[in-house]
């Protein structure tokens, strides 16, 4: 479905990953693991590039959320679906949301445990609430592939698994970078470990041993 073959990925002038070969198949839930700076975000960007060239509909949860702080929670979530409506519809929505859309978004945010009213500006939300807004935006937009970069990093131990489960369940295929190995093993079907500018393991979830993991996070 998405295939990288022997690619070298750079971030600016610095080479981040060398000679990467990776194939994502339909229906997989892939977790990218590795220390920060190992190249997870760069790999996700490369996968997104490939997926877009292949004409796939991609939903994204970026690490920095990339919300518009001045807009309301509702509008930020609606932004995931801008491409499904006409410009006029979106313009009207900007001024005054349609009731049906509002109800749908409210339902979704409730499901994700977001308490604030949907017309609250995003700049007044807490870090965890913003992250869930970004998640809601991806879910609302939908698509064939989810690419998420640390989508639950700002959430507590109770919320993180719930939100992750909801998110993953809405997409047939997903690639998610995570720093929590436990979550990865619980919710993903395949784990990919990045270290020293290359992929050091790539296997179904549950087949890793403790040494693999220790080696991944060792200095």
């Amino acid at each position, binding site marked *: 479905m998405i295939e990288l073959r022997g690619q070298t990925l750079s971030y600016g002038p610095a080479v981040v990953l060398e000679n990467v070969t990776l194939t994502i198949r339909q229906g997989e839930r892939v977790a990218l693991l590795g220390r920060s700076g190992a190249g997870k975000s760069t790999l996700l960007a490369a996968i997104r590039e490939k997926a*877009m060239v292949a004409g796939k*509909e*991609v*939903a*994204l949860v*970026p690490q*920095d959320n*990339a*919300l*518009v*702080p*001045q*807009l309301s929670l509702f*509008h930020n979530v609606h*932004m*995931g679906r*801008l*491409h499904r*409506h006409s*410009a006029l519809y*979106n*313009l009207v929505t*900007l001024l005054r949301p349609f009731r049906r859309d509002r109800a749908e978004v409210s339902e979704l945010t409730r499901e994700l445990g977001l308490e604030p009213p949907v017309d609250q500006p995003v700049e007044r939300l807490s870090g965890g609430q913003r992250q869930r807004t*970004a998640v809601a*935006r991806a879910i609302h*937009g939908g*698509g064939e592939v989810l690419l998420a970069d640390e989508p639950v990093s700002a959430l507590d131990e109770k919320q993180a698994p719930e939100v992750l489960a909801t998110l993953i369940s809405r997409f047939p295929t997903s690639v998610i970078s995570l720093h929590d190995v436990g979550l990865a093993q619980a919710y993903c079907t395949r784990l990919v470990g990045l270290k020293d500018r290359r992929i050091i393991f790539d296997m179904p979830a549950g087949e890793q041993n403790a040494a693999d993991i220790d080696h991944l996070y060792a200095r």
Partner: protein
Amino acid sequence: MLPTSIISMPAEREAKPSLRRLQVVWIALTLAALALFAADLQISAPSPGAVLKALAMGFARPDFAALENLRQALLLTLTVAFGGVAIGAVAGFAMALLWGWRAVRMLSLSLRSVHELIWALFIMTVTGPEPIAAVLALALSYSGIFAKVFGEILDEADPRPRDALPGRGMTLSGLIYARLVPSLPAFWSYFCYRIECGIRSSAVLGFVGLPTLGFELDTLFKQGRYDGAAAVLLLIYALILSQSLWLRRRLVPLYVLGALAYLASLSQGPVSAAGLWQLIGVDMVPAPLRGADPGAAGTWRAFGDWLWRLVSHEVLPGAWATVLVSYLAFVLCGIIALFAFPLIVPALAGRIGSGFGHVVLVILRSTPEYMLVFVGVQVFGPSMLPAVLALGLHNGAIIAHLIGREATRIVPGLRPDRPKGAGLYAYELVPRVSSGLIAYLFYRGEIILRESMILGILGIATLGFYVDSAIATLRFDRAAVLVVAMMLLTALVDWGSRALRRRLRVGAASTRPYC
């Protein structure tokens, strides 16, 4: 109302000025000394003291009875400002959306490099001396400025929200939600701030015969009624200094609508498309080409002769005078800024002294420079002297104000055993503010150039003098060539200053502080 972050500076801004920078300063001063010889700086009025005294007497006893007749001029000054700036903002916004296009950037540069007074001279020939001419002149000039600033704001907008959308948000809706909406507060803030500039510009437009406050000031001065003139000047100060009280952002939309409604209600002489066509399609076509056979060799030879005569007799002398005046004013501005900023630093001038310093700088920087030069010409007679003095003082005071504020903020953070007085000034403050000072100086330099061109209207032989003459003899073809010369000179100086800034490693001051 000023945006807070004004300068973008390279990382080494805390470093002392490098030797190279000092070398450039010496070269600049030497050039200025040479320019002093080339420039006409005579005091042609034999008794400038007498005029100054009469003016001071006028200020001592301003004749506010004259204000009775000023109500209409005051109302028009304000409505023209709001209307002109609003239309300029809408047009500038449209251009900003196409900022990626080179043609749009060129258009914006051309529009803003020509002063609104010059635009007004042209527009008045179609509309007559009516408020609509002032509105359009302001709108033309300001749309170029708005296009640039709005374009920059859009460029600076956080690209991530748009990029995160499906398909990287490359749709109209993506642009609106992720780019425009986040930029709106910055647009609005800049628009409100530009209104303040618009009020000054609008008042000054009266000097070329439009019915705003400048008209009254010009008339009263020419009649030697200094008490009345003083009253008008005081009114203009009151208007500018009280802005923080009545120019509330919430009220701005109301003011704009009110102004447009008022302007629309004014009766206006006929403005025919024919008149506009006559100006652009006939009058502005170079005389040798009008109705001539474009295939004939003689036509183009005549055009060449015509153009060469114009370039050698008017463009080059005008450009030379413009460069001289601007350069001298530029150097004077730097000197004044350097020596005047301590006036408002309490650690240097004392609390009372700095209060007094603030008053001096406020007066200098809130008087529109054109008015300062106008008063200077009344006092000293027409030469480059009043132009250089007024432009140097006005712009120097603006920079001194900005730098003085920065220095005041720096002082409390200095080591406890810091030097005092001259030592504090020379060793602690000047090195720290020098990068900012140079950045501001370059930015004001562009404004000085733009202003010195139009001072020709006051009889100083810069490019504006020749434009004014060409229009006086109804030769709009020559005026058009001269305006193009203004644009080229602006572009040339802009290019040179950018190159010099790069070599000096000084960041660009944003175009946002002060008019």
